[in-house]
């Protein structure tokens, strides 16, 4: 069926807004992959944990999720740093396949911990601005989603600056390119690994705070986002910050348009078609050529 242009425009805009937060989730995943060369299976569970943290901040302490975003990011940075330094690093014994299993195990532990603490109820928060919209021509754009979009772009810029302009960023890039060489020039590789993992986890905390006003949280909610984040990482190029953000936006629009035309069940096909096409035609992804 044909849709009037304003509906299509709105679907594209919605896709961009949703895609930005997907990109933020993918950002953490791609960073950890680019530097540590591991696929972090605990990513979804950590996102769930972050969403519960934002939920508790709101319901127990009355802190708005947007206000809680930065403190939560700091908290989850510390958590991510600790997990990599104290659990994943030592348990891996230098073997990548061990890391895979350790992160998988972590995800199971975190998920069930959340189930034990919060039970399986679906929880959501009601914030006064949840239903606010901005009229953009004929389209009604959700205020929380616009904030999510803006914040994601800010995080993207901040990360880009961090990676290109700071000593830590240089060290991260050095470790990503040549671990042994970096160690030889005096970079503490274990520390840099943990910092990277911490940054990835901090991205999740911000994504969680941005999602909560318009979404819900349950012990398995993170999985819904991780599958799409994997696709984005492949599309954008493994390890590329810009790739994750652009990939997120592209996937968001594809999902939105295919959802509009094919329905939300079949619409998921669009995402996975892209996944397969990228792997066939351009396995390095859009921005991953140098990696």
């Amino acid at each position, binding site marked *: 069926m044909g849709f009037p242009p304003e509906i299509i425009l709105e679907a594209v805009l919605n896709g961009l807004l949703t895609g930005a937060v997907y990109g933020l989730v993918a950002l953490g995943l791609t960073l950890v992959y680019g530097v540590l060369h591991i696929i972090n299976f605990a990513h979804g569970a950590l996102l769930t944990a972050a969403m519960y943290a934002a939920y508790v901040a709101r319901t127990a302490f009355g802190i708005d999720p947007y206000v809680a975003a930065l403190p939560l990011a700091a908290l989850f940075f510390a958590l991510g740093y600790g997990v990599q330094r104290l659990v994943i690093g030592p348990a891996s014994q230098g073997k990548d396949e061990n890391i895979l299993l350790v992160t998988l195990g972590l995800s199971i532990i975190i998920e069930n911990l959340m189930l034990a603490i919060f*039970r399986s109820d*679906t929880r959501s928060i009601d914030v006064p601005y949840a239903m606010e919209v901005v009229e953009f021509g004929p389209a009604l754009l959700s205020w929380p989603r616009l904030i999510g979009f803006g914040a994601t772009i800010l995080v993207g810029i901040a990360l880009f600056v961090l990676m290109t302009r700071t000593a830590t960023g240089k060290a991260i890039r050095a470790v990503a390119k040549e671990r042994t060489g970096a160690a030889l020039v005096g970079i503490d590789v274990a520390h840099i690994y943990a910092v990277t993992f911490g940054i990835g986890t901090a991205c999740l905390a911000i994504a969680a705070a941005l999602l909560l006003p318009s979404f819900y949280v349950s012990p398995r909610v993170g999985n819904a986002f991780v599958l799409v984040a994997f696709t984005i990482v492949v599309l954008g190029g493994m390890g590329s910050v810009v790739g994750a953000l652009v990939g997120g936006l592209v996937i968001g629009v594809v999902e939105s348009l295919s959802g509009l035309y094919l329905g939300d069940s079949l619409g998921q096909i669009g995402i996975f078609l892209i996944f397969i096409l990228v792997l066939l035609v351009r396995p390095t992804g859009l921005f991953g050529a140098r990696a």
Partner: protein
Amino acid sequence: MSGMMMGRRGLMLASAAGLSAPRVAGAQAPAVKLGILQPVTGALSQDGEYGRLGAELAINEINASGGLRALGGARIEMVFGDARSNPEGGVAEVEKMQAEGVVAVVGGFASPICLAASQAASRYDLPYIVDVGVSDQIVSRGLTNTFRFGPGFGVVTQTALDNLVALNDAAGKPARTVVIVHEDGLFGSGMARLLNAELPKRGFEVMETIAHPTPARDMNNVALRIRALRPDLVIPSSYYAEFVLLSRTMQQQRIRPKGIYCVLNGAASNFRFVREFPDAANLVMDCNHWADPRKPKTAELRRAVEAQNRFWLYNTPLNYSAVMLVADALERAGRADRAAVLQALAATDGRFERHIMPYGATRFVNGQNQAGQPVNTQVQGGDIKVIFPRDFADAQPVFPVTG
């Protein structure tokens, strides 16, 4: 421990005490063990918790009011089993209950659990009372041990369609076009198929049937399509989280059809939804299980539930009533004997009045209570009101929704 506030730990202590305590000299008859099966871990744990609550309240009430009279004041002792949200879990717990020597099993919640657990119970001629499971298969397998007090899928959907027509006719037929939104699993797809077949026969035009996955990340596209189609009615068959997401997105996108009419919806008869998102929930209609608002016991039970900071869901009255049904059968059987209880259950009639469902005189045919029926509810001003059938209703329907 105070009867009403008994938690999981309290229950375990209670049953342990029941097992080990020496019989009180003289009057006290031996306790009758009753199996309560609910999924309290896994995907269905929210429903399971509320089912268990209903059974607990019924058992506490019976015990507090002198136990089973025909059995010399015997108390009912709960043997609880966690079905772990899957059929295998349900079967394993029935086996344990059989070993414990329960006189009957109540519960199951989901149709797949009820199907498997009642079959396992049938091997021991153990009476099984289904609390919620609506699959029509449950009572069509010829199992003589299986009883369902509430209505099945066929009756619920038939009633939903009849009431929709009645509602529309009474308002001067303002609604003609319909968009069906459904989750793409067994429940939602089955419902969508049935609605697609039946609605045109009743003068409605189905403009579009939109499927969505569970879990869904986003309902904006569904909302956009609804906005483009401008249907008079939206009929959603989704689970809790997705329906909440859909109704909030529709609210945000200022989509106001003449009615949102749900059938067996996970959220529209759930006070959590009504309390947390009163604006999105307002005037949503549902055809579902619901306690009889006219019975004083309903209000009393609801107060007891809310005093525990729990929400009032249909699982609680259904399980309360199912336990009362067993107690009634035990009273008439006069002994805690499975065969006698089965016979008494099958012979239940209108004299069984301790339940709080809005059903007429109980009559079992092949294990199905012929009087079991759903009602139509509508969220009005932060409360869930019954709007159909008229003789049970505690509010007038607001339809079509204007503004």
